[in-house]
């Protein structure tokens, strides 16, 4: 099961000859795994997905899905993939069932098979009792589940999820994760997803690529990425206002010291041993430690390490912003 289902090689997309949305990215996704693209809004995640699902043509580079080239064999690619876009694309004027059947028609699934699958999928995402209600009346979570069901009607070998929980509240988000895991278990497919929620990446993804300004800056399992920081995070505050960075830096095992929001953020190996040493060193010089915390690195730290800043909402195109607003608004209805 280590076959490479998605392969991208130097994939690049330039809009209007100047805006580089995706910048020579190379990665591969193994069969059966959930592979996540983690990055802030506007980092190029959706553009990457749109190239892989044959909606956008790459400017440069190449990629294949299940061995089919995304440009030359786009038609074959389309047959084996399922797509759950960031937006709610289900037609509001139609019922949930009608929407799923529309998807089935687009894939050319035989009517009888389609009917059976539609009911099965609606049952799986627990929308059976709402299947004849117009989508207009659905809540954000229900819409997302309907999109999931639509994306699975052709029993895809690879499922693409673009920001699967965008705009959902925390509880609905957790429930949606459950559905995704259940669907994966049921159909055993490979999932490629994007997200800008760290918890989501941590909870769902087997492997991650951190993408920033169109470039992949790190790849690995969430654990590997955390371990790659080679150390824990110690946060210390002192009463005095002098700069003690150099003093802390001189302690054994300390890798890095940063002054951040009124405290020192220290990266150190074997934090539980190093922390007392730092306190000791500070005490010797007469400083008073007012606060100390020790954390194992989270994805947040990983993110900070590789991109140099916390996950942020960067400036992005008006259109992307508008699409997101629209999705958010409908999600919260």
């Amino acid at each position, binding site marked *: 099961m280590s076959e490479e289902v998605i392969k991208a090689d130097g994939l690049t997309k330039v809009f209007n000859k100047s805006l580089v949305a995706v910048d020579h990215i190379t990665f591969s996704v193994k069969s059966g795994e959930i592979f996540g693209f983690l990055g802030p809004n506007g980092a190029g995640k959706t553009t990457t997905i749109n190239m892989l699902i044959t909606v956008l043509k790459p400017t440069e580079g190449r990629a294949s899905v299940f061995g089919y080239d995304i440009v030359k064999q786009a038609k074959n690619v389309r047959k084996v993939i399922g797509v759950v876009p960031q937006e*709610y694309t289900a037609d509001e004027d139609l019922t949930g069932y009608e929407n799923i059947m529309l998807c089935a028609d687009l*894939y050319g699934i035989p009517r009888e098979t389609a009917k059976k699958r539609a009911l099965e999928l609606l049952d799986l995402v627990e929308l059976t009792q709402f299947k004849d209600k117009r989508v207009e009346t659905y809540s954000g979570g229900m819409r997302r589940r309907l999109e999931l069901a639509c994306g699975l009607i052709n029993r895809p070998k690879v499922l693409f999820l673009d920001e699967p929980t965008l705009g959902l509240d925390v509880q609905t988000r957790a429930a949606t994760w459950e559905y995704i895991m259940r669907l994966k278990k049921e159909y055993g497919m490979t999932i490629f997803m994007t997200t800008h929620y760290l918890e989501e990446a941590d909870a769902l993804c087997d492997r991650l690529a951190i993408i920033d300004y169109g470039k992949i800056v790190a790849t690995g399992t969430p654990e590997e990425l955390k371990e790659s920081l080679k150390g824990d995070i110690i946060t210390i505050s002192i009463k005095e206002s002098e700069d003690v960075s150099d003093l802390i830096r001189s302690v054994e095992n300390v890798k890095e010291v940063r002054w951040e929001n009124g405290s020192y953020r220290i990266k150190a190996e074997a934090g539980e041993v190093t922390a007392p040493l730092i306190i000791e060193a500070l005490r010797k010089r007469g400083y008073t430690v007012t606060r100390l915390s020790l954390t194992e690195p989270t994805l947040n730290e990983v993110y900070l390490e590789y991109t140099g800043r916390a996950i942020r909402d960067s400036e992005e195109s008006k259109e992307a912003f508008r699409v997101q607003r629209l999705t958010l608004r409908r999600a919260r209805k």
Partner: protein
Amino acid sequence: MKGGAVVVTEAEAEAKAKETAMAKGIDEAVAAAEEEYYPSMFRGLWALTARELKKWLKDPVMVLMFVLQPLIWMGLLGKSMNINAMFSAKSLGNMEIPNIQIPGNLLNPPISGVVVIPGALIAHELQRVFSDIGTKVMQNTFGVVDYFSYMAVGMVSMIVMTTTMFSGMSIVWDRRLGFLDKVISTPVSRAAITLSKVLNATLRAIFQATIILAIAYLLGLQLSPSFSLINLLGIYASIFLLGVGLSSVFIAFSLRSTRMERPMQIISLITMPLMFASNTFFPVSLMPDWIQMVARINPLTYLTDAVRQLTIMPLDASALIFDLIYLGIFATILAAIGIVLSWRYLTK
């Protein structure tokens, strides 16, 4: 490498099919093994068209809005510009003609005394003749004696034009909602995506044109004696051709755009000129040369003429055939362009 991947894929699919068979019974296994579907162009086309027709029928207000505009034109312009009255006896109603006295010796043979022709009699005769002339003028200018009938039929062209123009808007809307991207990511034929819009707009145009004709009939449209219900088929055929042609143009225009404003502007910019530079309101032959040039290539002229031939005028088969051929060529060329553009432009 690529070949190898495909082989593994098939083997895996089979293995999966077997697993499923154990778990879920033979039926499912067969379905899973037949994972390779061949989506037919027709099925996709119909699914996408049906979606829009369903949406449309669930929103009767929109149907009303589309019908309302030509209805207002028909009611206001058709009835208020009462050209019939201009050429009727009433136009000469307040003529004061004095009695004419003719001395008898001027007559041949001369008689004695004076002949008096009453002015009222002259006025009456003039009115009668003028009314006859008026009818002739109307007949020769418009082909029918009734201007309302003439322009009410023109409203069929108007509704076909506005309905098909908005088909372009719906593709922009689909793009903005993300629906279009989702459809593009499925194996459905690219041509089906564009053609479903064309078909949808055309079917709507046919439906709305029927309503317009029915209302016009109630308001006093005078059908020619040669009219029969079979003529309706001819009317629908010509509406279909113009609908296909026009909606292809507007969809092609809208394929790349993500903003509603642009198609909106184009629509409002060209609607009026297209209507007035055609025979919708007035016969082309009486227009200045430069407008005639536009009107003679304007497809609206040919639809309007075809529908007039089939409703209010005595049918002239050769003229009708020429209209249909022109509309057919128009539709074929533009639909072909639309399909080619959709292949090229749907994937950016």
